[in-house]
């Protein structure tokens, strides 16, 4: 029973991390039908920039906020200076631009922060929290809290704000959105900023657990991308649920079956999903118009 609880906690922690990484993929895919291969680097930047600001002597709250803002700005710059510059670019061209951007961000982190890993103390102390005999790092609660915050925030954004509704309209029909006066290029920038900021927020809260390193983004992005796929690729909520499903599956498969192939669990789930439910858990079936 304690084991079960322990695996559950592990799964939730992992899942929340994957979810926080995955949301950004879904947001960008939703707005531009491109896979943003720099998403993992936004997460890395979140942790790295916090470390950087902390060494400048800023208090944690400011350092974290600074990191999120910095990432959002980088997201905007990526959209504006690179993606928007490639005129009439196909989706694949945009994907390669994001790959290039990911390398540049990795390279920038390598130049500024070196090749060592970095971390900072957990927000509420390093002592593990005891939960009915199972133990979790207190920082996991912060990760879960961030995920909840992002979920509520996204819901509010899409349901209540004009900007969110404009994003929705752009997703449904980019041409129609232009016709009714939505500034589509601005919407794309907003989506990149939003996914960069959410990724960075993930990075900020997970770094005390995962630590950070200039090459951390790549493996995280792969898992986050899987989370987004399981969630249907176009749905931010789907990505969050997808992340939790992956995290829990990994923890339970690793715990009860064998950790040897734990890493493969996410990908086996994707294949199973493609066979049985190809549109993802929350994806919409593409409607073909002739």
């Amino acid at each position, binding site marked *: 029973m304690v084991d079960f609880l322990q695996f559950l906690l592990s799964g939730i922690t992992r899942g929340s991390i994957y979810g926080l990484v995955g949301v950004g993929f879904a947001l960008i895919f939703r707005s531009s039908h491109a896979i943003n*291969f720099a998403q993992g680097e936004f997460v890395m930047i979140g942790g790295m920039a916090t470390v950087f600001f902390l060494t400048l002597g800023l208090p944690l709250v400011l350092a974290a906020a600074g990191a999120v803002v910095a990432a959002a700005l980088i997201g905007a710059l990526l959209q504006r200076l*690179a993606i928007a*510059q*490639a*005129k*009439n*670019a*196909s*989706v*694949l*061209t945009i*994907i*390669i*631009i994001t*790959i*290039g*951007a*990911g*390398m*540049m*961000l*990795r*390279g*920038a982190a*390598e*130049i500024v922060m070196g090749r060592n890993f970095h971390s900072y103390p957990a927000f509420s102390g390093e002592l593990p929290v005891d939960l009915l005999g199972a133990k979790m790092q207190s920082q996991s609660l912060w990760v879960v809290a961030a995920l909840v915050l992002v979920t509520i925030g996204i819901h509010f954004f899409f349901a209540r704000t004009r900007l969110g509704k404009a994003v929705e309209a752009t997703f449904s029909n980019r041409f129609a959105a232009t016709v009714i006066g939505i500034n589509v290029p601005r919407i794309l920038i907003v989506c990149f900023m939003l996914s960069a900021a959410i990724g960075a927020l993930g990075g900020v809260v997970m770094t005390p657990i995962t630590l950070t390193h200039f090459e951390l983004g*790549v493996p995280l992005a*792969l898992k986050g*991308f*899987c989370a987004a*796929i399981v969630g249907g*690729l176009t749905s931010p909520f789907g990505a969050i649920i997808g992340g939790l499903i992956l995290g829990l599956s990994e923890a339970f498969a690793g715990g009860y079956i064998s950790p*040897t*192939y734990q*890493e*493969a669990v996410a*990908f*086996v789930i*994707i*294949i199973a999903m*493609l*066979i049985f439910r*190809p549109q993802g858990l929350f994806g919409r079936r*593409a409607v*073909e118009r*002739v």
Partner: protein
Amino acid sequence: MTSDTPRQLIACAVLATALALLPIVAPNPYYLDLATKACLAAVVCIGLNLLSGYAGQLSLGHAAFFGVGAYASAILCAKVGITPVVAMLAGCLISAGIAYVMARTVLRLKGHYLAMATLAFGVIISIVLNREVALTGGPDGMSVPRFNLFGYRTTGVWAGYGLAAVALVLAVRTAIVFVNSRVGRALRAIGDSEVAAEGLGIDIARYKTGVFVISAVFASVAGSIFAHADRFVSPAEAGFMRSVEFVAMIVIGGLGSVAGSIVGATLLTLLPQLLAGFDHYRHFLTGLILILIMIFMPAGIVPTLLASGRALHDRYRPFGRSARSVTGRTSEG
């Protein structure tokens, strides 16, 4: 790409001559090693380009087929003692079989499903190669015997280069003939408009499956040759990052262009060597170069250069051809 087949076959002969002359002009075997790797990457890219550039499907796991070919050769030659050519064919069969099953499963669906399936499958293959230590040597990889043909043992970097060059010429020739055949035209039609292609009687799922299997076999052959050329294979060859690199090569060189595949493969094979002296700045510069190429040549290097060449040549045609979108919808009117 017009269907001016003889002219393209002449280009093919020129390529073969250049590849044959390279060992004579190359200052030393290091350049042959690079040329070998560029040729093999180009073989993978030509196959991948048939899939992405012509049929409009994306694969994020093509390195896995390269890995299957490489390990099939490595394991069958080193542990079973099978002759390399047979091992290579076995690798092709395994790759083709996997590709066929995958395509049959997901290609009935429209959208990015092949990308997702290949991603998942590719990572699983690399994990298996990593974990099955007894068979594959695990993360440290395994050594591969020399290539031998009819009992004649080959030595050194020359042999690896020879095999790779022959494979590239064959791949180019095959791709050119293929693209300009009924099958190739059907695939390009699918890339442009699936609805219209289907209406003309083209069995889309069958054609996509066929081209996916072919592209897997191209990658597998390249992998087998690689195993003998380097005489060593490691799971990184099948990894996700390698798959992404192959996609980057064809997009940068030019989708739907055989020459683009070669240019992209060569460029991205040489780039790390060119930037090797820049130490900490290497990653940053590589990323910057990729972005700049994509901004200034969004259709890829070869199509962009061809288009500007044509624009100079023919003032009456103001627009170059734009890149195909990956889903292949070009809506007009």
